[in-house]
């Protein structure tokens, strides 16, 4: 087992344990999760679907829209905390590399923050499965957590971490909310600017929900046409998934570069970094 892998595993476990013990992270996400479930259950888009498994697929999209943005808001300051003057130098003396540590910090906190949302979605799947006497809704709920919620959470968390490094954290949170709704719900027919909504670049996970979870076609390309808005099928859903994960990787690497630049003594701010 390499040192890097040990460092990643160690920091993920440490961060997850600390975040779970601290309780603030997952407690503060409960109101948002409850609201997202309430909006999903009362949504005509969900209730309008006859098929129980399709209803869970649409629920996953609604929960993704309203709850996952909270992860970005909650975790926007994580990387800033870990780049405080002095702390980087101390951690640099340990055998684990900076990239491994950074990945561990984000992944550990993200796992704890995503847990209440994932649990609620799976419970909804269990309830729908019992009601419909079929295993399909539960399978859709689990698949939804893996293919829709987790990649979207990775993308918004890495973006928030990067924004928190470049801006004061409170303003980064505003930017995270604005960018999230711009990228998932505001299509060009609503706002007069180009948006990723309805394309394979959107972290909404609409393509996965339509192709694999039985949601209605409108969630995928939002009646847009063009090279970036192909018709929903397994290929375009996989492309959406891969592109969102690639975006998360780009944001993560950019944050890594900013932290390396700061650690070399450029642009460090002391004190008021909220």
């Amino acid at each position, binding site marked *: 087992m390499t040192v890097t892998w040990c460092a990643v595993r160690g920091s993920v476990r440490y961060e997850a344990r600390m975040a779970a013990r601290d309780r603030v992270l997952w407690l503060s996400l409960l109101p948002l999760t409850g609201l997202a479930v*309430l909006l999903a259950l009362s949504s005509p888009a969900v209730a309008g679907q006859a098929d129980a498994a399709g209803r869970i697929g649409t629920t996953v999209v609604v929960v993704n829209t*309203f709850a996952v943005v909270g992860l970005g808001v909650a975790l926007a*300051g994580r990387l800033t905390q870990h780049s405080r003057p002095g702390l980087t130098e101390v951690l640099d003396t340990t055998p684990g590399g900076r990239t491994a540590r950074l990945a561990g910090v984000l992944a550990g906190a993200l796992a704890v923050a995503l847990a209440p949302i994932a649990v609620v979605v799976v419970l909804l799947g269990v309830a729908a499965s019992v009601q419909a006497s079929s295993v399909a809704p539960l399978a859709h709920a689990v698949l939804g957590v893996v293919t829709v919620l987790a990649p979207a959470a990775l993308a918004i968390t890495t973006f928030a971490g990067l924004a928190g490094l470049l801006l004061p954290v*409170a*303003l980064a949170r*505003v930017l995270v*909310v604005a960018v999230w709704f711009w990228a998932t719900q*505001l299509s060009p027919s609503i706002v007069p600017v180009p948006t990723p909504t309805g394309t394979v670049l959107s972290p909404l996970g609409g393509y996965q929900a339509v192709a694999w979870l039985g949601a209605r076609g409108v969630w995928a390309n939002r009646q847009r046409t063009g090279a970036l808005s192909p018709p929903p099928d397994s290929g375009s859903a996989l492309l959406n998934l891969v592109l969102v994960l690639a975006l998360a990787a780009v944001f993560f690497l950019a944050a890594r570069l900013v932290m390396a630049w700061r650690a070399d003594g450029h642009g460090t701010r002391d004190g008021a970094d909220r």
Partner: protein
Amino acid sequence: MNLAALPGYVRGMHDWRLWRYEARRAGRHLLVAPPVLAGVLLATGLGLRGAGFTGAWLAQSAPPLVAGLAVAAVVGGERAAELHLSLPTPLRTTLGRRLALLGAATVLGALILAAGLLPDAHALSRFAALCAFGAMLGAAGAWSAAALRSTAGASTVVLAAWLAELFVLDRIFAAPAVRIVAQLVLAALFAAPASRLLAEGRGLIEGGRE
């Protein structure tokens, strides 16, 4: 908890320098954000008359979110709570000054946005709606930051309150006047426990979290 000011104690700062200092402690970027956002919304035409549903929606909902997140950052961001608790000026007064500055910035932003609708009478209702919604989210931010002792946690609660207002309460209280009254009542319900927690002050000491 706070030390009483002894007879020989001379307050070093009691004029405009105090407010300049508190503005710096609150974060100048947070004080500048509301008027700048209002200016951007007007400059892009989204805050003007005839901007359509999206523009009106953005002008009505974005500034209160900024106010709520800023209050959460100010109340949750004081790192020297222990030090403040040892001073004759109560921590609640100090944070109250910073929040007053934030409130003034938010009202200024609301005035700028309301001016975008002039001479229409809707300007007044937009101003009142922005102030009431901002007060509600600000109070929610102050309470959650004091109760959770965490800016990150409080920001998530503010986001939940913002979405709840836009997607649930707006449907229940459809009439604008009723909505404003409901928001002010909610603001008072959040502000009272927030004020009590900040007056106690002790609970803030364990802070140091982001």
